[in-house]
């Protein structure tokens, strides 16, 4: 417990590298916000922690690689999960060769479809939230996720990735079509409607 190390601080949570039962783990600790009253803060922290843990669990059941959950502390807002050793997809995406990148995109698409088949919406699919480990893509940070059956939320979920690829990997942004190719292979619903939805969202021209 003494060798805890802060590896990332976001607006909502601290990500801490720690140990748990002699394993290397990551703790996601949602920070108390003093600007909001206790009645709101406590409910938000515990419900979001619970929701995120639930999504991670359900994603795993769909065969999507996610960190293993070790402990969920609703009172303090801490999720303890396995540390995924590997490369952030963001860091390697533009450096790997074309063929590998295509395979990676297809794999990403397949995984998103597996989530969407059970109405699991990640909420923040960017290449920063994927880790390539052992040739598998792990999805992390379900903090903005939800369970939602609407086509809209699936479209938005994919659109977030599309925009992230355009801004962060502008040279290879066209590879998003391979993401859709992979998605199509696993998605149970009508892929045409999903594609149409993405086009609609792009037309709204608001998100970025």
């Amino acid at each position, binding site marked *: 417990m003494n060798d805890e190390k802060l590896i990332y601080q976001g607006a909502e949570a601290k990500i801490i590298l720690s140990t748990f039962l002699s394993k290397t783990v990551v703790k996601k600790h949602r920070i108390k916000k003093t600007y909001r009253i206790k009645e*709101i803060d406590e409910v938000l922290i515990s419900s979001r922690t619970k929701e995120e843990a639930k999504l991670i669990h359900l994603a795993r059941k769909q065969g999507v690689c996610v960190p293993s959950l070790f402990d969920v502390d609703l009172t303090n807002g801490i999720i303890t999960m396995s540390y995924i050793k590997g490369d952030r997809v963001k860091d390697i995406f533009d450096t790997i060769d074309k063929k590998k990148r295509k395979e990676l995109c297809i794999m990403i698409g397949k995984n998103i479809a597996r989530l969407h088949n059970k109405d699991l919406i990640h909420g923040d699919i960017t290449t920063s939230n994927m880790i390539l480990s052992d040739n598998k893509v792990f999805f992390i940070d379900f903090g903005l996720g939800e369970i939602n059956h609407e086509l809209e939320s699936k479209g938005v979920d994919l659109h977030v990735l599309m925009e992230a690829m355009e801004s962060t990997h502008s040279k290879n942004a066209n590879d998003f079509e391979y993401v859709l190719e992979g998605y199509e292979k696993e998605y149970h619903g009508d892929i045409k409607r999903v594609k149409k939805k993405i086009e609609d969202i792009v037309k709204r021209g608001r998100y970025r």
Partner: protein
Amino acid sequence: MISLGIEGTAHSIAIGIVENKDNACIVLSNMIKTFHPESGGIHPREAANHHAKYVADVIKDSMKKAEIDFKDIDLVSFSQGPGLGPCLRTAATAARTLSLQLEKPIMGVNHCVAHLEIGRGTIDSCDDPVLLYTSGANTQVIAFAEGKYRVFGETLDIGIGNCLDKFGRTIGLPFPSGPVIEKYAKNGRKYLPLPYSIKGMDIAFSGLLTAAQQYYKNGETVEDVCYSIQETTFAALTEVTERAMAQLEKKEVLLGGGVAANQRLRGMVEEMAKERDARCFAPRIDLCIDNGAMIAWLGLVMYQSGIRMMLEDTGIDQRFRTDMVDVSWR
């Protein structure tokens, strides 16, 4: 350079006159005349009639306050959008008339961007803020990124001011209800749980409004309901602002819009900024609400960056989006 700005996007017709001194905005005058409906909300045409009736008087008052002559004016600026069509057209017509009459250039500006630029112009150390813009119709988190002012989060349904006004109408308050709700809220003690609706960086208030109305109808005290509305909506606004600051790694936050006059909202955003080691700025109240000075200032900044507008470019745009503006001055 001296610029006269005409604001008329919604409930107010306002004329501001500003001067540029070493890239800082000096407000010479800032007169505002607000339309107060006898009952209900703002009817666009009634508001426009009000603006047409008073615009000349407000111009005269503003000139008098600034102690300048019409020949001292170098630029006529006006709010081109977004806003209510009839109101925008009235302000634009006044601006075109003045520009032709004085033979001075004209500049149509984006109302939302003006809220941000007046902060940068009048507050010395405010340089690159995330703006939390909270007014009746608009609720947006705006910041500069990749050459434009972009909206990072906004309301998916109604503006926060609108939400407060609608609740105000439920309990029989006239427009604007925000200040009265703030007073009631100070005496609220019991928190009544309300929907806290954040979707990513966006936010929604209509569900909360309905729930608050139900509480009131079911006999909860006005004080407690107002307290709960403020605590919930302002916490959500502060949270999306913080998210934008974290994502963009910005160390400044600026408040704008009429709701920014609320002390509780200010307090929350200040607290959030302090926790993040960031700085919080709020222009003085007459520059927070819809006003002519901010329109005058943005027009001036645009003009000095080399932007020119012909009369035929001065058509209004009710849906003028923040990110449609090419920001050539930064």
